[in-house]
C-alpha cells in the first residue's frame, strides 16, 4: 500500500512531540491449558511519561487543562477530578479454576465487579466523598452498576491490596477503598466503552481480535482497568481483557486444535500504527507434541513470540496436535498449578443461621503462610468466637491469627476480617465459623429476592515461611487467590403485605389500648337483669 509510509510520516510529524511523552504497548498472551482450553490475556498499556498526579490539596482550585493523544481522556478526567493515585477495576464472569488453569496473568479474577483505589487524603473533599464520585463516574463510563458499591460494601483491607505502583510522598497519607459486587455481570455493554478507551479502538492491531460474540461465549471472561503511578516514569493505564476459551467445544471433531480465527473468528490484518510494541506470545510450558504455525520469530523460555508490527499479510497463529484424533480430558488433574487449593462453602439448612467452612490444602512440601481476607456485607454476620481450625480432626486454633476484624453494622457497614493462616507442609486445614443470617427490611430485598444474595469471594495471599527452597511463584510478588463467590439464602417477608401488616398490627394495638382505657376510665355498676321485678 503506497500511502502507508507517507501517512506514517505525516502522523509522526504531526504527533511527534506528543508521542514522545505517551507510549502505547499492546500484547496478547495465549496459554494452551492442560484441560484443552486456551487462556487469552489481552493487555493494552499506555504510559503517560513524566506525568504528575493531582495533589488532593489542589482539588479546591481549577485543574490544568488536559491534552492526550493516546491516553484515554475520559479516564484521565475522572482520575484528575477525584485525585486518584491508583485504581483497579475488574468486571468478571465465572469463577477462575486455579487448580487446572494456574495463576491468571491478571490477579484480579474475583467474580463480579471489584473496584479498589488508593486515594490521597488531605483534600477539602473527604476520601469517602471522592470514592463515591469515583465509583459513580466509572459506573457511567463502563455502563456497570458500580454505584451499588456503596458504604455497605466498602472496606479498607490494606494488608491484601497493597499499591502496585508508587504512592507519591504528599503531606497527607493515602487511604485504600475496596468494594466488590459479585452479582454484577460483564457483558457487551461494558466492552464497548472499554474499546473506546483504546487508541486504535478495535479496528487494528491486537484489539481487532476482541470479538464480543466469541469473548462472551468463553468459559470465563473478564475485563480490567488498572491505573498506577510509577515514581520515575509517570502514570500508567493498563486495560486488560482475559478469557478462557474452549476450542474442544467449538471443534466438531472434539479436537483441541485452535487458531486465532477459530478462537476469535477474526485474524489480525493491520497493525495498530501508534503502538510502540505489539506482541503475541504463546505459552508452551503446559503442552507438548504440538505443532505451531507460522514459525515464531523467537522462542523465549517456552514462549513463542510473534511481533505484530509490521504486518505483510494477515496474521493467524494456529496450533494443532497432529497425533491426536480427539482430545482426551485428563482424568485427574495432575499436580495442581497453585500451591493452595481452597474450597469455601456455606453450610446449614435454616434461614436464621449457618456455618462458613473453608478447606485449604497446602500442596507444597514446605510450611506456608497465607493472608486470609473476608470483606463480607452485613448480609452474613460472623460469630468470630466460633472460628476454629482443624487438621486431621484435631483442633489447631494456634494456626489462625486474626489481624484485624471490623464487625458489620446492619443496614450500614460490612465486616472486614484479615487473618494469617499457617499451613503445615502437605496438609489440609479445615476452618469453620458459625454465621447468622440477618433479616432485611422489605425495601432492601432485590426484585428477585428468593434467588438469594451473592457474597463476595474470600481472598488468600500465600507467602512462604522461609525464602529457601520454595516455589518460584511465591518468591516473586505474592499473588492473590480468589475463592468462588457464595450464595446466601435470606428469609424474605411477604412483599404484598405492607398495608395488611400495618393494618393488622395497628388493629391489635388499638384494640388493647381501647379495651384497657375502657376498663380504666368507665365506672362499674350493678344492674338488675332478671325477669322478676326488684
Amino acid at each position: 500500500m503506497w500511502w502507508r509510509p507517507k501517512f506514517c510520516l505525516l502522523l509522526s510529524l504531526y504527533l511527534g512531540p506528543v508521542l514522545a511523552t505517551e507510549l502505547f504497548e499492546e500484547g496478547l498472551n495465549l496459554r494452551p491449558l492442560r484441560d484443552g482450553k486456551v487462556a487469552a490475556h489481552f493487555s493494552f498499556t499506555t504510559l503517560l511519561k513524566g506525568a504528575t498526579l493531582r495533589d488532593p490539596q489542589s482539588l479546591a482550585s481549577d485543574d490544568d487543562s488536559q491534552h492526550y493523544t493516546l491516553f484515554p481522556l475520559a479516564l484521565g478526567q475522572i482520575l484528575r477530578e477525584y485525585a486518584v493515585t491508583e485504581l483497579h477495576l475488574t468486571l468478571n464472569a465465572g469463577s477462575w479454576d486455579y487448580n487446572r488453569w494456574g495463576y491468571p496473568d491478571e490477579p484480579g479474577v474475583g467474580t463480579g465487579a471489584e473496584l479498589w483505589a488508593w486515594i490521597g487524603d488531605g483534600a477539602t473533599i473527604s476520601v469517602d466523598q471522592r470514592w463515591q464520585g469515583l465509583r459513580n463516574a466509572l459506573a457511567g463510563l463502563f455502563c456497570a452498576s458500580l454505584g451499588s458499591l456503596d458504604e455497605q460494601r466498602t472496606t479498607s483491607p490494606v494488608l491484601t491490596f497493597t499499591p502496585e505502583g508508587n504512592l507519591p510522598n504528599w503531606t497527607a497519607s493515602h487511604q485504600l477503598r475496596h468494594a466488590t459486587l459479585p452479582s454484577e455481570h460483564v457483558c457487551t455493554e461494558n466492552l464497548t466503552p472499554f474499546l473506546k478507551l483504546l487508541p486504535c479502538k478495535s479496528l487494528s492491531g491486537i484489539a481487532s481480535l476482541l470479538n464480543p460474540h466469541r469473548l462472551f461465549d468463553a468459559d470465563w471472561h473478564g475485563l480490567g482497568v488498572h491505573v498506577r503511578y510509577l515514581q520515575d516514569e509517570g502514570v500508567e493505564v493498563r486495560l486488560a481483557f482475559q478469557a478462557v476459551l474452549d476450542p474442544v467445544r467449538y471443534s466438531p471433531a472434539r479436537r483441541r486444535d485452535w487458531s486465532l480465527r477459530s478462537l476469535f473468528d477474526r485474524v489480525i490484518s493491520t497493525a495498530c500504527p501508534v503502538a510502540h510494541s505489539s506482541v503475541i506470545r504463546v505459552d508452551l510450558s503446559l503442552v507438548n507434541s504440538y505443532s505451531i504455525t507460522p514459525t515464531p520469530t523467537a522462542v523465549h523460555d517456552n514462549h513463542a513470540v510473534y511481533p505484530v508490527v509490521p504486518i505483510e499479510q494477515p496474521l493467524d497463529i494456529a496450533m494443532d496436535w497432529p497425533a491426536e484424533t480427539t482430545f482426551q480430558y485428563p482424568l485427574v488433574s495432575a499436580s495442581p498449578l497453585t500451591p493452595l487449593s481452597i474450597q469455601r462453602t456455606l453450610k446449614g439448612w435454616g434461614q436464621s443461621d449457618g456455618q462458613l467452612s473453608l478447606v485449604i490444602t497446602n500442596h507444597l512440601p514446605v510450611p506456608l503462610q497465607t493472608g486470609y481476607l473476608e470483606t463480607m456485607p452485613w448480609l452474613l454476620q460472623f460469630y468470630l468466637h466460633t472460628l476454629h481450625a482443624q487438621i486431621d480432626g484435631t483442633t489447631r486454633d494456634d494456626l489462625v491469627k486474626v489481624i484485624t476484624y471490623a464487625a458489620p453494622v446492619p443496614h450500614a457497614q460490612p465486616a472486614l476480617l484479615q487473618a494469617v493462616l499457617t499451613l503445615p507442609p502437605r496438609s489440609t486445614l479445615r476452618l469453620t465459623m458459625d454465621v447468622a443470617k440477618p433479616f432485611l427490611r422489605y425495601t432492601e430485598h432485590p426484585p428477585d429476592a428468593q434467588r438469594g444474595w451473592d457474597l463476595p469471594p474470600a481472598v488468600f495471599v500465600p507467602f512462604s515461611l522461609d525464602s529457601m527452597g520454595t516455589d518460584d511463584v511465591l518468591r516473586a510478588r505474592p499473588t492473590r487467590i480468589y475463592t468462588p463467590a457464595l450464595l446466601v439464602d435470606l428469609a424474605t417477608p411477604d412483599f404484598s403485605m405492607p398495608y395488611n401488616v400495618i393494618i393488622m398490627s395497628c388493629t391489635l394495638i388499638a384494640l388493647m389500648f381501647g379495651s384497657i382505657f375502657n376498663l380504666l376510665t368507665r365506672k362499674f355498676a350493678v344492674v338488675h337483669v332478671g325477669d322478676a321485678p326488684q
Partner: protein
Amino acid sequence: MDFNVVFPALVAGRLVLALSPLPVDLKNDHLLSSPLTSYSRLQEGIYLFQHGTNPYSGGIFRHSPLLLSLFSTFLPLNPTTSPLLWTASDVVAAWSLVKIWRVRSGVSHNPRDGLIAALYLLNPYTLLPSLAWSTSSFENALHLLSLMFACRGQSSASLLTLAILVQLSLPSILLLIPLLLLIVSEPISRVAAPRTFIADTRKSLPLLAEFAVYSTCLTLSATLACGDWSWVEKTWGAALLLPDLTPNPGLWWYFFTEMFDHFRPFFLMVFSVHQLIYVIPICITFQHDILYACYLLLGVLALFKPYPTLSDPGLFLSMLSLFPETFAYLRHPMVTALLHLHAALLLPLFHHLWLIQGTGNANFFYASTLVFGMANGAALLDSMWAGLRIAIGELKEDFEVVQE
C-alpha cells in the same frame, strides 16, 4: 407440702435440666432469645472485647457494658458456669417471688409458698429462655428482686436493682413510678378495698433523686468500662430504633420489616411513646394496691416491648400466682388460656415452617405472633378486669356488673 422440701427439689430439677445438652440446641432460638439477650451474641461481644476490638463498633453485640465487664473479668462465661449461673438467676427470681408473696399475705410460712415457686420455676415461658441462656432470665430476676426489696421497704436496694435493670433493658423504666409509690406505701393486698393513696407521695421525690444518682453512676461506669459512648446507641438505641429485625414473639419486628421507609421514624416514635401512656392511668386506678399496678405494667411490657422473648409474658403469668383473691373474678379465663395454648403451639411450629423447613412464609409466623399478642392482651385485660371487679364483690342472682 413443706416449702423447705419443695423448693430444693425444684432447684435440683432445674439444675438437672440446665446441665442437659438442651441449651446448645436452644440458644439461637428466636422465641427464647432476642438480639438484645442472645447468648451467642454475648459470647461474641466478650470475645471481641478480650481481643481488643470495641464490641459496640459493630451491630452484633447489644448487651449492656455491665454484663460485658462482668463476664469478661471475674466471671467467665463457658458451658460449665452458664447452667449454674442461669439456674441461680431463676432461683433468685423464684425466691423473690415467694418473698413478695409472704410480705403481701403477711404470714411467714404459707402452704402456697411451694406452689408459687413451682409456678415460676416450671413455667415453660420462663424455663425455656433460661435453658437457652438468654439474658432475659437475668432481667426477670432483677424485676422480681427490685419488687421484693420495694415490698420490704428496702428503698436503696430496690432502686439500685431497678437502675441495673434499666441498664440491661431500657423499656423497664416503665416500672420506675409504680416502684417509687410501692416503696412509700405497703404491699398489703387492698385490691378488693379501693381507697385513695394514703402514703405521702412527696417522700418519693428523694427516692427519685436516688434512682437518678444510681443510674448516672452505672451509666458512667458502663462508659468507663467500654471507653466511649458507643454502647448507648447499640443497647438503649436498639430498643428505640429497632435496627435488628430478627423475628421474636412481639409485635414490632414484622411491622418495621414491612414499614415504608419514610414512615419508619414516625411509627418508631409512636410505638415507643405508646408504652408510656399506660403508666399514669394504671397507677391512678390501682393507687390502693400499687403492687397490682406493677404487675399490670409488666403485662403491658410483655405485650408491647420492642424485643420481647417468651420470658416477658412468662414473668407476667407467674406473677398472677401472687393475687389468688382475683382468680374468682377473671373475666374470660378459659378464652385466655386457650389463646395462650394456641399461640404456644403455633409459634414454634410456624417459626420452624418458615425458617427451617422452608414450606411456610413469614406471614405464618407473623399470624402466630398476632395470636400471641392477643393472648397476652387478653391475660392483661382479664387481670385488669378482675382487679376492678373484685371491689364489687359477690352478687346476688339476677344482678350483673356492667360499665357505665
